[in-house]
């Protein structure tokens, strides 16, 4: 039993159960997909795509749902949004003939840039996620706390520790002599 819905008859192919499921969750899927859809995208088509994915191959995807691990509403929203995004990606691949592209745009600039690699383990996954939510999604501390199901004070403390690590890391990084500076100094001495 998931959120009051018995999926047993549904995944056995019971038509009445499927109709009931569609009526119950069409509104949810519509709401989930609406935010992902770009302007001009047919939202109804995207919802249809989600339902089609759920019943495809003898309800293969729906059979993977485990009510003991997560709520059906949560799971359906995640499935709906990822399906809609995939569908949009497939349908909106823009192709421009190479002759229509100005030559200047096709020219490849020979710029050898060494990517700077920072130690990935500097921040813990939780710290990275908190900073992502605060600075990339512009979420409030209380919103982050609600999303992570932790206390707002824990969010503040996680943020504080993460920023300390970053400041220390970059301070050390800036004090260290750069290779080109060292070479220039050596040349002057020589």
């Amino acid at each position, binding site marked *: 039993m998931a959120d009051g819905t018995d999926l047993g008859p549904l995944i056995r192919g019971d038509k009445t159960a499927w109709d009931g499921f569609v009526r119950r969750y*069409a509104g949810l899927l*519509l709401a*989930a997909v609406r935010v992902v859809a770009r302007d001009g995208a047919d939202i109804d088509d995207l919802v249809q795509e989600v339902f089609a994915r759920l019943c495809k191959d003898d309800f293969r995807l729906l059979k*993977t749902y485990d009510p003991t691990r*997560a*709520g059906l509403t949560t799971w359906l929203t995640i499935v709906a949004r990822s399906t809609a995004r995939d569908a949009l990606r497939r349908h909106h691949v823009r192709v421009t003939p190479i002759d229509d592209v100005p030559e200047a745009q096709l020219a490849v600039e020979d710029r050898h840039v060494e990517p700077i690699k920072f130690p*990935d383990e500097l921040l813990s996954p*939780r710290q990275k*996620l908190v900073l992502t*939510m605060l600075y990339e999604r512009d979420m409030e501390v209380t919103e982050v706390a609600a999303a992570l199901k932790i206390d707002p004070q824990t969010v503040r403390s996680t943020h504080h520790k993460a920023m300390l690590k970053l400041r220390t890391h970059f301070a050390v990084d800036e004090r260290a002599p750069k290779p080109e500076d060292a070479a220039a100094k050596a040349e002057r001495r020589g």
Partner: protein
Amino acid sequence: MTGPGDRTESVALWQRWRQGASVTADGAAPDTMVLAAWADGRLDEAQAEPVEAWLADHPDALADLLAAQRLALSAPSASAAEALIERACALVPSLPDNVVALRRSGTRAPLWLSAIRWGGLAASLVVTSLVGFELGNDAYANFAGQPPAAESALHELLDPPLSVFSADEDQAT
């Protein structure tokens, strides 16, 4: 949490680190069920760690989970159009009138009955094999015109001497 100046500095630091760290960040997407469990707060710290590491590098997925949390809390007010519902319902066809769904009977034969059936079949195979062997055992002797060395009871039963029938015929005449 912090003043505007602090925030600008913090954002700049985070973006600077992000540019470098994102080079190495990659990995397989966690299963949808795992993501849903994370959104519902049903993962322990050890289980949540790899999911959060992945989410920090996949903003779209993070947005999906945050939306799922929001929608789980408040039932969506949007109602779907009847045409959309009908299209989705049609994805699972109902059986035509002339097709009857056959189901396996719920009551199966008891074990003892099935044992008797298989036992009877095995016994009849054994008897048939023995009879065939007995009949075929004397075949070479019969072709050679020699009487069988010893008449077995089974042979007598299946191939009675001619005198049995001739005695009956005498009595009839």
